[in-house]
């Protein structure tokens, strides 16, 4: 079974530029999450999708971050414009058991904002 795929693995941009990250969850997984993990901290939830609907985006900085999951499968997270404090690893996770059960994480996309 293929795992959660994320790309790119690494991205370096200058502040005020834009960046997009892509995630393809495990086949059949209805729930998809985007987390931000700053160095030395635990993952912080940005947004949760159930199929193509948003379940929770309360911690998403909506003035600069956006995410979509148009067909209920893969998802894109965009940051525009980026700030220095956005430097982090962006992790995508999925689960096929609704809200109960293990989360399957991708390897993450490491963003450096200069």
């Amino acid at each position, binding site marked *: 079974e293929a795992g*959660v795929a994320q790309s790119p693995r690494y991205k370096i941009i200058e502040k005020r530029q834009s960046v997009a990250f892509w995630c393809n969850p495990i086949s059949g997984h209805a729930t998809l999450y985007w*987390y931000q993990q700053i160095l*030395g*901290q*635990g*993952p*912080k*939830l940005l947004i*949760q999708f159930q199929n193509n609907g948003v*379940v*929770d985006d309360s911690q998403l900085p909506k003035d600069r971050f956006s995410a979509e999951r148009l067909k209920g499968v893969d998802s894109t997270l965009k940051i525009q414009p980026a700030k220095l404090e956005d430097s982090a690893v962006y*992790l995508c*996770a999925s689960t096929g058991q*609704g*809200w*109960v*059960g*293990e*989360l*399957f*994480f*991708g*390897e*993450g996309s490491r963003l450096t904002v200069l």
Partner: protein
Amino acid sequence: SQKIEQNSEALNIQEGKTATLTCNYTNYSPAYLQWYRQDPGRGPVFLLLIRENEKEKRKERLKVTFDTTLKQSLFHITASQPADSATYLCALHTNAGKSTFGDGTTLTVKP
């Protein structure tokens, strides 16, 4: 405010000993709690899940306890090996479907 605290940022133990990691929380009513392992440059990997009505779960050399009165979970690795060296994250999940991770404890097992 809601808070999750994992014990000291780093834990160093000798190979063969038991590692005990703690996860304390305040102002949560978790339905269940999970433990994950994260290696440098990798995503977290699920280890164990324990529900609010369970006291203890075991999986091979791993054991987790959950005390909702003390608001604490303990994670034990028995007969630790250098390969167990990693960061361990606890995550609380509520019935409302919200999940929150602690900042993790980095375990180093020395040969």
